[in-house]
């Protein structure tokens, strides 16, 4: 690295702005501006505007507000109650009993929502009080919920995957397809953990569920059918190449509106609240993406990504060693930043490294999502832990300890993903190509 001094200044400004609490998107714009100032003599303002305009008016990005809106609509329906009532009868007989409603509920809601906080709130609102009433160990109730909620980031639609796809210019549909199998595998691993713990934990003595006939079970879960149908339409239309990610999102919004209307929970108030909520969240992400787009332009001029890629290349790390280094790096970063910010902030630097190592970008997207998901449940600060604290009133330490086994399972998931890359790459390679 030839120009160590200026790069140090550049990084110092980055940490100063982000650390002092400047809003992430603006901090990225500011750092990028300073980078241009130090490393080039180009007219900065016009370059910034060109890139800000290009990144904010991109067609791919329109999938983002639509998927957010879809989740916002469903969040305001009675889905939470329906989910618990519909799932409980089917899962009661498994070893681990109703704890599985946490995992399966999160998996289902993850398939209509792109965020893990939303998944956690929707599922936990109902399952926490119900499971407590039946005497399930609190530790397991909280732990499984914290862990399983992270599936919201992995199972499509996933906001993090959209942001990743937009940032590195990969097909969002392919990324979504890639997330399905690893998401299900992770869910199965959580369920396996629940089953094992139900045998091992001495305090696992929940009230057994009353027996139900098959007809009663069906009657209880009739409300779940429309949600399942919505999931099949959204994911199926993408898989069969009938719709692009954006179009699938529009279908999802239409379906969610119909569903909410049929349920009677669609009023002008919920409609406008969901639309305004979606507009705000998507504006928040758009600001970060703008900053990130200008930053990656500026980063190119600093030579930092190339230098780092060469440096890493010079160390002759194996692919596995590189991934381990990135794993640790993202876990540490995740202590300070949310998933989306850590992805956009680092991708300009990480991309050349990963490219040089010959790693598939679709696969890497899933890897990065699992890793930033872990950050959601790690102390000192993980978003899911905070949401859970608000919902249960427990101390942060207790929640973090309860979530620790889930963290371990996710680490195992990373290794599974490395050992069997086909989990992520098989579906996208075999889907029909989309309309463009």
């Amino acid at each position, binding site marked *: 690295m030839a120009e160590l001094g200026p790069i140090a200044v550049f990084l110092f400004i980055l940490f100063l702005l982000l650390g002092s609490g400047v809003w992430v998107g603006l901090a990225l714009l500011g750092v990028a501006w300073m980078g241009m100032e130090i490393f080039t003599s180009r007219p900065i303002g016009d370059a910034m505007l060109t890139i800000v305009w290009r990144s904010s008016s991109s067609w791919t990005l329109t999938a983002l507000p639509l998927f957010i809106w879809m989740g*916002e609509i469903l969040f305001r329906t009675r889905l939470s109650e329906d989910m618990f009532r519909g799932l409980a009868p089917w899962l009661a007989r498994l070893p681990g009993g109703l704890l599985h409603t946490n995992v399966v509920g999160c998996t289902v809601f993850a398939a209509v929502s792109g*965020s893990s906080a*939303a998944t956690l709130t929707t599922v936990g609102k109902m399952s926490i009080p119900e499971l407590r009433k039946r005497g399930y160990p609190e530790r397991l109730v909280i732990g499984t919920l914290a862990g399983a909620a992270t599936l919201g980031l992995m199972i499509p639609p996933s906001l993090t995957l959209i942001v990743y796809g937009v940032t590195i210019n990969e097909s969002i549909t392919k990324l979504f397809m890639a997330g399905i199998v690893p998401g299900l595998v992770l869910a199965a691993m959580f369920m396996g953990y629940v089953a094992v713990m139900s045998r091992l934990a001495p305090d696992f003595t929940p009230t057994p569920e009353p027996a139900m006939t098959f007809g009663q079970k069906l009657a209880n879960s009739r409300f779940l059918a429309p949600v399942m149908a919505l999931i099949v339409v959204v994911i199926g239309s993408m898989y069969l190449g009938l719709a692009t990610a954006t179009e699938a999102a*529009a279908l999802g919004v239409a379906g969610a509106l119909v569903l909410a209307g049929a349920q009677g929970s669609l009023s002008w108030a919920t409609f406008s609240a969901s639309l305004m909520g979606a507009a705000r969240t998507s504006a928040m992400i758009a600001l970060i993406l703008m900053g990130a787009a200008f930053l990656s332009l500026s980063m190119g001029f600093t030579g930092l990504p190339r230098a780092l890629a060469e440096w890493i290349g010079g160390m002759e790390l194996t692919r596995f060693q590189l991934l381990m280094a990135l794993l640790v790096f993202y876990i540490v970063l995740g202590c300070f930043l949310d998933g989306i910010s850590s992805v956009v902030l680092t991708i300009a630097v990480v991309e050349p490294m990963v490219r040089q190592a010959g790693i598939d970008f679709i696969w890497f997207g899933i890897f990065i999502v699992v890793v930033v998901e872990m950050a959601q449940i790690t102390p000192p600060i993980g978003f899911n832990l905070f949401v859970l604290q608000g919902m249960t009133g427990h101390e942060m330490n207790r929640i973090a300890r309860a979530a620790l086994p889930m963290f371990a399972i996710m680490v195992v998931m990373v290794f599974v993903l490395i050992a069997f890359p086909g989990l992520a790459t098989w579906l996208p390679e075999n889907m029909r190509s989309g309309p463009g």
Partner: protein
Amino acid sequence: MTDLPKASKPRTGPRPVLRRALDAVYDGAGVLGAACLLAIFAVILAQMVARWSGLIFPGAADYAGYLMAAASFLTFAHAMNRGAHIRVSLLLSALGPRRRWAEAWCLAFATLMTGTVAWYACRAVYWSRKLHDVSQGQDATPLWIVQLPMAAGAILLALCMADNLVTLLLTGRDNITEDDLPDQPQADQVQGE
């Protein structure tokens, strides 16, 4: 960690006309932004319907893109005052009572940065109009028209930052309030500290 700024206490008493007017402008622009989102939905549905019935909707992708930019920029200021934009608040919450000065620095920087963006956004619109720039896509829309919401939103965001800075310096409290909803579903962010 990234999270929301600390919630300010609910305001009491009558609020000055200027305050109400500014808030109305931010929220009004936010509503326009949400309307753009609705329009994106309509454009994409129309495009799908057109394709299924063998027609073409020329430039649909471009229109959706312009609407996306308009939706984002017009909602920025409103999102700001509802505390939707995320930030790393580890240091801020550690500062305790001296937090005000750090907040002032953040807002001062934000005013400068958003002001710069607004300035260049206006320039971009001016030059697009002067040079009769037209979109490269099938839609061939004059660029200055579709860039206008970007400039308007950028000016509003800069105004909102300056407004927050001045309010903070004068009253010791900014205009940022949390959403009234108990949980903001989509944004992966934290309400408490």
